[in-house]
């Protein structure tokens, strides 16, 4: 820090730097790509309508836009945005584990995009959670003050969401520092990565399973085919293949849309990466099926298969778990990326179906007035997803997310290590 006497001479430089910084930010804020695209034409109206509906929701209460009832207090926003979305965001903890803990260099090219995706997913799903909370201005209560509900799984999950968002931001921060040209900050932040990854993976194992544990308290309400004391394990394992399938799905789209932002070496390596991820997804899908079978046999669930709930359950397990597992295996054997992508899509649909079953559809299955989401709930969810994609696109087209780290920085890291 400059002393008092030096301040007068230091100030112009400081001002000059600040001016330079703001000019840079303003230049970066300007759109980089053609504005009139099919994606924009669809997403902008949805986001505008969604924003209006959000205003109505806060002005007139949750009942004005949702179909939630006293019997079904959690609907699509919790079941899909949060409970499914967090599983989809599981890729970040898996890829950071592979790259930073296991030093599997093969996956390094996708680590930044995956972390960015995870970070944005958590930020936006936490945002969606704010919409669902009846009294969101009280959200600080479990974090500060004397309102710690230690007994609550949701307390654990809430804390983990918050800490994990911070962890993911730290994991991503070297990219921001590179973008801004802050070399010293980058060096420091880069050194934090391994510790943060270890912390983040630990948090993820706990809150991915914690989401399942939350439903342990709804024992009498969830259909026996979906309730199990192993829900935490099932949620943790399904977060693995959900996360991997999402990385495949998102990576495939990114590689088409942002082709110009990806260097050639990375592009060539991507097929091998996808095959590796597919192998992981196949193994965990199989493990998941095994757990499902254990729960099914142990719970003597044969009797429940006779009615429509039994068929619904079989559809989920056979079409959305067993089938993608087999397609993944075949895709890996034949090195057929088309099959792998198809399997990833089916897997994602299956995870969404399972999470919605536990939290919404098979929840209060005996109810005479089952909950069906309103179109407004769906539009707001779509708006949240589109907003997330907009931010993702903005970051990817400006920061070094899809490129490799510049060689001089890698050398610097090695010298530091």
């Amino acid at each position: 820090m400059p002393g008092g006497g030096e301040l007068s001479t230091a100030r112009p430089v400081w001002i000059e730097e600040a001016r330079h910084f703001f000019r840079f930010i303003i230049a970066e804020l300007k759109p980089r790509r053609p504005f009139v695209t099919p994606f924009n034409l669809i997403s902008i109206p949805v986001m505008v309508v969604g924003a209006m509906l959000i205003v109505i929701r806060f002005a007139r209460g949750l009942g004005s836009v949702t179909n939630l009832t006293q019997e079904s207090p959690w609907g699509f926003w919790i079941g899909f945005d949060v409970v499914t979305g967090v599983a989809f965001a599981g890729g970040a903890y898996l890829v950071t584990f592979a790259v930073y803990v296991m030093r599997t260099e093969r996956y390094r090219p996708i680590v930044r995009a995956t972390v960015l995706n995870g970070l944005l997913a958590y930020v936006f799903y936490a945002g969606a959670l704010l919409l669902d909370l009846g009294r969101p201005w009280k959200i600080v209560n479990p974090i500060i003050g004397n309102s710690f509900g230690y007994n609550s799984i949701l307390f654990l999950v809430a804390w983990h969401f918050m800490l994990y968002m911070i962890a993911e931001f730290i994991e991503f921060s070297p990219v921001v520092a590179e973008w801004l040209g802050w070399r010293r900050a980058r060096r420091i932040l880069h050194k934090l990565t391994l510790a943060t990854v270890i912390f983040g993976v630990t948090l993820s194992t706990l809150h991915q399973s914690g989401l399942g544990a939350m439903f342990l308290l709804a024992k009498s309400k969830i259909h026996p085919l979906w309730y199990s004391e192993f829900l935490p394990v099932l949620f943790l394992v399904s977060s693995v293949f959900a996360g991997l399938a999402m990385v495949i799905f998102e990576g495939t789209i990114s590689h088409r849309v942002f082709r110009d932002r990806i260097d050639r070496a990375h592009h060539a390596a991507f097929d091998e990466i996808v095959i590796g991820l597919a192998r992981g997804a196949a193994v965990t899908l199989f493990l998941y099926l095994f757990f499902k079978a254990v729960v099914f046999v142990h719970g003597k669930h044969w009797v429940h298969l006779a009615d429509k709930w039994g068929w619904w359950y079989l559809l989920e397990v056979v079409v959305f778990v067993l089938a993608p597992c087999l397609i993944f295996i075949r895709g890996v054997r034949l090195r057929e990326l088309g099959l792998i992508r198809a399997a990833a899509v089916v897997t994602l649909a299956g995870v969404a179906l399972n999470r919605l079953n536990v939290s919404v559809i098979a929840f209060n299955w005996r109810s005479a007035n089952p909950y069906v989401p309103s179109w407004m709930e769906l539009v707001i969810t779509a708006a949240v997803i589109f907003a997330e994609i907009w931010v993702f696109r903005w970051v990817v087209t400006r920061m070094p997310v899809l490129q490799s780290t510049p060689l001089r920085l890698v050398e610097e890291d090695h010298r530091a290590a």
Partner: protein
Amino acid sequence: MDRRRFLRLAGAAGAALAAGSRRARADGEPAEVEFIGVLVDTTRCIGCRSCEVACGEAHGLDVPDVVNDGALETERTTTTRQRTVVNRYSTDAGTVFVKRQCMHCWQPACTAACLTNAMYKTHEGPVIWREPKCMGCRYCMVACPFEVPRFEYDSPVPRIEKCTLCWDRLERGHIPACVKACPVDTLMFGSKRDLLEIARVRIYNHPEHYVHKIYGEHEVGGTGWLYLSAAPFEQLGFPSDLGTTPYPEFTREFLYSVPVVFLAVPTLLAGLHRLSRDRENS
């Protein structure tokens, strides 16, 4: 609440229930606070719904027009405007009226669910909702096996509405409004221990008059409200599949595993990292 005054109240209630109670508390404080509750003898209920009226008046909620509203024709649940309702059932033992409200579980699912302690089990037994702490997540509603907490979906500043066993009245030294209003002694307020004894005595004295079960004695680990009936409880709209395990038990193992995971997983990960480094160097 002033504990001493509360105990005097509970003691007085207990004494009023059974003269010469074992724990007449004339001298000094006893070591422990006893949970309080209400015994509902459905064989006495005449379906007058005075309790609904008294509840609405006591809490500034809807006061039903019991003569004209014909509400007994349908099976109702509590609402954001009514913390208690009386339903009519046709059973093996004829027409039976049943008052429903929060059961005030001994180990409630709602308080185990609540991440801000807004849903709170008082030391004396009533489960209350504390507005300043609640963030409106509605996990209490997901967890409650009796579907009691009600949420104001039509308000931008929503509240959770549920029976508090008239906690505010108890603090002022009064008994719950519904108990006070009951004209036929269907409802009896006192310590849970006393109420269980009285319930057992009634079954013992009139074995042909009651099913030999006290609903709430063991359900979900025991509830503050206890019910006697002449007909099987399934015929009175009570859930019969809840088991006797207190709901917080279902999540306890998971919560206990958290510190273990926080120690074991980072250790494991650090070890794996070291191994991968060695492999790279060799």
